[in-house]
């Protein structure tokens, strides 16, 4: 029985959730500013409705308004929110407490921080049952263990008394789901429940929500920014833009015949896995404008790679391990084998992407090459420098050739420095010119990254996330580096902004013949901008080769699994199940004295190697 049929069968029944003219305002500088404006929608029994939008669209505020979880003195909620026909906005706070976690339950984005660290997970789930169902401690314990079983946490009985930190992110989200479903709510609100999770874990959690929904017959309101996730889970979709609902309808209709220009633009900007079939070189993202919704034809990046010269970056047998100490004297009892015997080349003008899930060592690889962490052994040759044997002055000189861009544009810029000072700093510190020359350089760089030179006196908080990332890019370019290590540089950005920043990187590559070591977990973005791709797993490269070879002909089991897990924005995939295997990511922690086995690689086609 598909969820769509269930929805149709219940069409005559009253809505579980009916939002009518909901307006939420926040107190800003003494005045009420609306952040959600007069929105209305219904969620039918057994139905899954997705609210999709970018940051600032008001999708999370909508969910928190329904739950009445916004700070009362800072926010005002108007309109009507009917749950099973009763207006919950009119309830007293005490009566509302009986609705929360009982009729309507909620799960959140951050499984790592959403559980109380000092209580056992068993206690935290039991609490719901004792609060709403009046169960005794023993009854609640038995029911909790049943719920833990239901969300497929292995060995549930034994894990009742464990604390959140003893669980991985995916397992914690299962605990959250068990907690939300414990009192058998009619409606589950899931606010970006898989955004913080690795892609293979995301697939498992989506499967779990779908299965439990069928078993329990509940409705789901799913908040997300990810069109791929929407396509996979939602019966109906609501598109939000800056506090307004711009469009709502059946998910398939929205995807195929989206009426509003923003919907089309959003869909156009979504990187799709497999869309690069037949393209030889990296391809820019089509950027539409919100007015017309029409996107211009994307332009391929000209061939910038010159493989005949010596590579600008050459890594051989790089090993980085972090010791783990314990016991009375702090003896080393093991090590995190973060990077284990990896080798690759990067040519001038080339983009090599390193992909993998959290803990696979991709970030450590970037940091080892720039010696922000000290590698244990191996060789790194970068633009003529033998990196691992450099002293401090040598290291400083070498860093002119390689610069980094980090993930979080909010914390990687000093809030007390103007943008101009931030960009000029490396230029001045390396004594490349006078203060006056630096000013000219800053104006030039700002223009290059698509910002106005007049912005030089502003502070980071005056910029949006995408603009800040452009500033970080400008800072990286200030030293005219040959190689840029981009560590998840576009991961924190909204889809449309992500596309723009990726295009900027490709523009810069064409203009300056830059080489990128592009570290990312986002397969679709990687497919778009890479010349070559390396897949990392547990500190090792399991597969490396030209982009087309990796994506069209993946050889390693892990590469295949990674690709299969990526949600694709195609509503045909709704109802897709990936199978219920709930394997966790393995850990690269090894006991002291562990000798990694010798690895052999097989050449599949020219330049395409896979670990055997």
């Amino acid at each position, binding site marked *: 029985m598909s969820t769509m049929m269930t929805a149709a069968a219940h069409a005559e029944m009253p809505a579980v959730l009916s939002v009518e003219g909901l307006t939420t305002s926040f107190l800003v500088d003494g005045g009420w500013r609306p952040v959600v404006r007069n929105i209305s929608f219904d969620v039918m029994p057994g139905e899954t409705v997705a609210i999709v939008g970018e940051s600032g669209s008001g999708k999370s505020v909508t969910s928190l308004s329904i739950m009445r*979880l916004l700070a009362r003195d800072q926010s005002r909620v108007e309109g009507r929110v009917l749950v099973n026909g009763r207006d919950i906005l009119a309830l007293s706070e005490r009566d509302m*407490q009986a609705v929360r*976690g009982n009729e309507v339950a909620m799960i959140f984005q951050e499984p790592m921080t*959403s559980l*109380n*660290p000092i209580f056992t997970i068993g206690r935290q789930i039991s609490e719901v049952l004792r609060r709403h169902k009046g169960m005794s401690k023993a009854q609640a314990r038995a029911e909790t263990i049943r719920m833990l079983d239901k969300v497929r946490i292995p060995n549930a009985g034994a894990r009742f008394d464990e604390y959140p930190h003893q669980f991985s992110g995916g397992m914690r989200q299962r605990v959250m789901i068990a907690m939300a479903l414990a009192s058998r709510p009619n409606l589950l609100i899931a606010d970006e429940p898989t955004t913080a999770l690795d892609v293979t874990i995301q697939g498992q959690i989506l499967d779990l929500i779908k299965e439990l929904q069928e078993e329990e017959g509940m409705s789901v309101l799913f908040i997300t920014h990810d069109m791929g996730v929407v396509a996979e889970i939602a019966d109906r979709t609501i598109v939000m833009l800056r506090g307004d609902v711009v469009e709502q309808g059946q998910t398939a209709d929205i995807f195929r015949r989206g009426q509003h220009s923003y919907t089309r633009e959003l869909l156009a900007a979504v990187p799709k896995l497999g869309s690069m079939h037949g393209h030889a070189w990296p391809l820019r993202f089509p950027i539409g404008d919100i007015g017309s919704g029409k996107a211009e034809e994307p332009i391929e990046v000209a061939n910038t790679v010159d493989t005949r010269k010596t590579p600008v970056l050459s890594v051989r047998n790089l090993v980085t391990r972090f010791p783990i100490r314990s016991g*009375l004297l702090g003896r080393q009892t093991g090590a995190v084998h973060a990077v284990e015997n990896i080798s690759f080349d990067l040519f001038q003008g080339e983009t090599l992407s390193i992909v993998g899930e959290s803990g696979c060592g991709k970030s450590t690889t970037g940091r080892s090459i720039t010696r922000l962490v000290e590698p244990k052994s191996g060789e790194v040759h970068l633009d003529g420098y033998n990196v691992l044997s450099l002293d401090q002055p040598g290291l400083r000189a070498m860093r002119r050739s390689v610069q980094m861009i980090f993930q979080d544009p909010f914390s990687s810029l000093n809030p007390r420095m103007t943008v101009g000072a931030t960009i000029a700093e490396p230029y001045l510190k390396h004594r490349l010119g006078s203060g006056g020359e630096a000013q000219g350089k800053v104006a030039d760089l700002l223009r290059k990254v698509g910002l106005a030179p007049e912005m030089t006196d502003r502070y980071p908080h005056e910029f949006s996330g995408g603009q800040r990332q452009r500033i970080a890019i400008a800072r990286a370019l200030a030293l005219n580096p040959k190689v840029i290590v981009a560590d998840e540089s576009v991961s924190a950005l909204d889809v449309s902004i992500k596309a723009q920043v990726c295009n900027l990187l490709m523009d810069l590559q064409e203009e300056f013949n830059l080489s990128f070591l592009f570290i990312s977990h986002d397969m679709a973005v990687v497919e778009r901008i890479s010349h070559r791709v390396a897949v990392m797993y547990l500190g090792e490269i399991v597969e490396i080769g030209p982009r087309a070879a990796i994506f069209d002909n993946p050889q390693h089991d892990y590469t295949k699994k990674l690709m299969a897990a990526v949600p694709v924005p195609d509503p045909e995939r709704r109802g897709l199940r990936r199978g219920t295997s709930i394997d966790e990511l393995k850990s690269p922690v090894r006991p002291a004295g562990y000798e990694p086995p010798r690895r052999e690689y097989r050449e599949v086609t020219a330049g395409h190697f896979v670990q055997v």
Partner: protein
Amino acid sequence: MHIYIGKRLLVAIPTLLIVSIFVFSLQKLLPGDPILAMAGEERDPQVIEFLREKYRLNDPVVYQYGYWVANVLQGDFGVSLRTNQPVLELIGEKLPVTIQLALMSMIFAFVIGVPMGILAAVRKNTVIDYVANIVALSGLSIPNFWLGIMLILLVSVKLGWLPASGYESVFVDPLRSLETTFMPAFVLGTALAATLMRHTRSAMLGVMKADYIRTARAKGLSERVVILSHTFRNALLPIVTLSALLFGELLAGAVLTEQIFTIPGFGKLIVDAVFNRDYAVVQGVVLCTAVGFILMNLIADVLYVLLNPRMRASL
């Protein structure tokens, strides 16, 4: 757990060694000679020489330190140069008095400071919060000795409710003991209560922003459970650490307060010893204080670990 405590105790050894060297050298650097003070008015050179020999003050400084440490390790802190009473005996006499005072002021501090901090956090930016902050600020800025004197004037002289000075041991007359220590403990406790209130408030506010508090509310728990169970249990962690540090402040405060209320405690002992250049007593007292401070911190660390499951796992 045992390994953890053992480790912490091992770390305490070098700390104590450094403290002992510091205390010992400080003595040597201080102006004034205790022998001259002991020898009396005549300053007979023979007497002085005899005394110097007796206390081994003619040996090299390093030797003197060695003798002292060796004796301390055998439980012999020497005798007071002034009264010839063994230092250990003196400490044994005075320490319980100050411990009683310290415990009572800690109780005062917690009973006043923590609930006030919680209330101020929950009612942030309301009249309650402002009043609590004003009270706390006053508690911090009013000096102990002034508050002490004012209390004596009001409660003892005017109203005659409590004795103005003196001390009675709990073991002799518990009620009388409470009467004599109530005011000094209150005076000592107020400053600590103010610090505790400020820290409780900010710790509570910090935790209240946490995602898991939103989760607790989303579960439909009552506000009381959310605040007292989910929030406070987490906010308690920094408070525990702070309390151990406050203990040092407490000892410093005790010196003054005991003078005002003429309580024969540790504070008074050390003041008298310093004025009399009573080397052995000062050394003994400071060492004892250091041990107490290290012990308090150890207890706080152990409590922290017990309260925090994340730490428990790493043991």
